[in-house]
């Protein structure tokens, strides 16, 4: 049913502005789902994933502008992203915990530095544009609706792939390595390799999302790979709830909608973003999806207790209780 709802979304939204926002939500959901593999299931917080997202977008743009066409552009960009993910992983996995975070920040900043300064390759601050969106099987993706459907297909593939991945024996190994790395080693697992492979998988989906971003905007600039971008997608994962499938999607919805709505009414999006970060960490550290579930269950229990009978109610002074 959710699927039918998602597929028919453009029909009942009508307005292409909102369809585009829906596409943005989906593409960022792919990104957040990919990041969640490493943040949630591997327990390694990366603040450099916008680097991978950006590497995919930039290499796609450069290949397409180099005349290689969309197919080779996409394949090439994903190959480059996987290579970069491998390099990131080898370096970042030298540390765990804080070390890992710091190294990913540094790696992300290198990518940003290259995007910003290596002007002959990346056109610096001006960014790189591409002329067209691809037309798979002869279907043009120029308009908002078909682009939305294409993004939806990619999103569903990503969701299914990640769902299978986390429920697999390898997924169980990954979660084990997150919770008890030493023990997992003693049980015969190669914890380093498990994390390395998970990073590649995470990088791959970040790259896919990066390409969606490139096609959505037909443009990529250093802003795409800035620390703020890494932080935004991390916020999606954390706010929605790490190590859940639904969490990153909810987080992407929240952040994209907030960003578009907030930027329409208030100029201070970054301030709001920062404040949400702080508030979530302090008040709902487990994320919105698990947090809301907890509140919901608590609410239902309270409700049931109130309905449980007049005996319990009798102790409550009139006017203070009841089912509002």
């Amino acid at each position, binding site marked *: 049913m959710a699927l039918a709802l998602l597929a028919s979304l453009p029909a009942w939204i009508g307005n292409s502005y909102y369809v585009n926002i829906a596409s943005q939500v989906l593409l960022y959901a792919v990104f957040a789902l990919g990041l969640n593999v490493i943040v949630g299931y591997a327990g390694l917080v990366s603040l450099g994933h916008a680097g991978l997202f950006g590497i995919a977008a930039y290499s796609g743009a450069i290949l397409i502008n180099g005349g290689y066409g969309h197919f080779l552009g996409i394949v090439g960009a994903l190959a480059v992203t996987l290579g970069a993910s491998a390099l990131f992983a080898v*370096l970042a996995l030298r540390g765990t*915990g804080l070390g890992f*975070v*710091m190294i990913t920040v540094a790696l992300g900043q290198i990518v940003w*530095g290259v995007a910003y*300064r*290596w002007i002959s390759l990346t056109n610096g601050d001006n960014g790189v544009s591409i002329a067209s969106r691809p037309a798979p099987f002869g279907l043009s993706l120029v308009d908002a609706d078909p682009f939305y459907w294409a993004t939806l297909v990619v999103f569903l593939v990503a969701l299914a792939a990640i769902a299978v991945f986390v429920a697999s024996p390898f997924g169980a190994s990954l979660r084990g390595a997150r919770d008890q790395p030493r023990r997992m080693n003693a049980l015969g697992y190669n914890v380093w390799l498990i994390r390395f492979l998970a990073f590649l998988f995470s990088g791959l989906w970040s790259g896919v999302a990066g390409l969606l971003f490139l096609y959505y905007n037909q443009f990529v600039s250093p802003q795409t790979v800035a620390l703020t971008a890494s932080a935004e997608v991390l916020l999606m994962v954390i706010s929605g709830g790490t190590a859940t499938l639904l969490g990153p999607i909810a987080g992407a919805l929240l952040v994209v909608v907030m960003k578009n709505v907030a930027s329409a009414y208030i100029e201070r999006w970054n*301030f709001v973003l920062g404040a949400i970060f*702080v508030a979530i*960490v302090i008040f709902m550290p487990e994320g919105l999806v698990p947090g809301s579930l907890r509140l919901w269950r608590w609410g239902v229990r309270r409700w049931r207790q109130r309905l449980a009978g007049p005996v319990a109610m009798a102790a409550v002074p009139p006017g203070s209780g009841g089912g509002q």
Partner: protein
Amino acid sequence: MNLWLLAANSIAFGGLLFLLSAGFALIFGLMRIPNLTHGSLFMLGAYFGVSLMAWGLGFWAAALVGGVGVAVLGGLIERLLLRRLPGAELAQVLVTLGLSFMIADTCLMQWGGDPISIETPAALRGASHVAGVAFPTYRLGVIVIAVTFATALWAMLERTRLGAMIRAGVDDPMMARAAGIRVPLLFTVVFCLGSGLAGFAGVIGGPILSVYPGLDQDMLPLALVVVILGGSGSLVGSFVGSFVVGVLYNFGQALLPELAYVVLFLPMLLVLVVRPAGLFGRPSP
């Protein structure tokens, strides 16, 4: 560009980085807090300096007052937010990151989007001749300030009771606690000190870097590189690391402008691969 001048600029920039990253290294080493607001505190210090000087304070007074102002803010951040999250590294990363966005946006709102330069104090304008080569006097001054602070910090860490407590906390937090050191108070003191140094550095750096939105994002990775190179919690490591980064950054900008960031980060990556604890950090057992 003149090679001597480039070298002098590198060293001056290294001195500035030391003021910035010494606090970062202490906070990271002692409290295990990856303080991602550190770049923002530097920028905030610089903006405080701008406003204080606009109200008629002299440069040095503005630097001191700005530093103290940032130190107080740092203390508040530690007391009100970070204290609620002991040991929760991910939460600390997120809160400090969130705060850095809020600070950056507030600065943008308060001081606008254009770069603001801070005037060089009159006494240090112009050039000095050292061994027949002309250097900008102010940069020499920054080197002197950095060396003075390094010496003072070193003496504080090695010679005073507070320093002994901080060292004990860096070496073994559990033992320090068991030995009756009031670690929570120590944390606040160190956080204030580190923040204050960053704020002070922001004003001192003003005449060289000027102040602009995004200064925080430019400085934070540099502090990160210094600490990764030098090792967390190591003053000597920060000192050496700062000058290495200063040289790499300036020479990289001048000689290979397109790849300046690669030149800057490559040595850090090499150090990580060869010696993950940093050049001067102690490897954990």
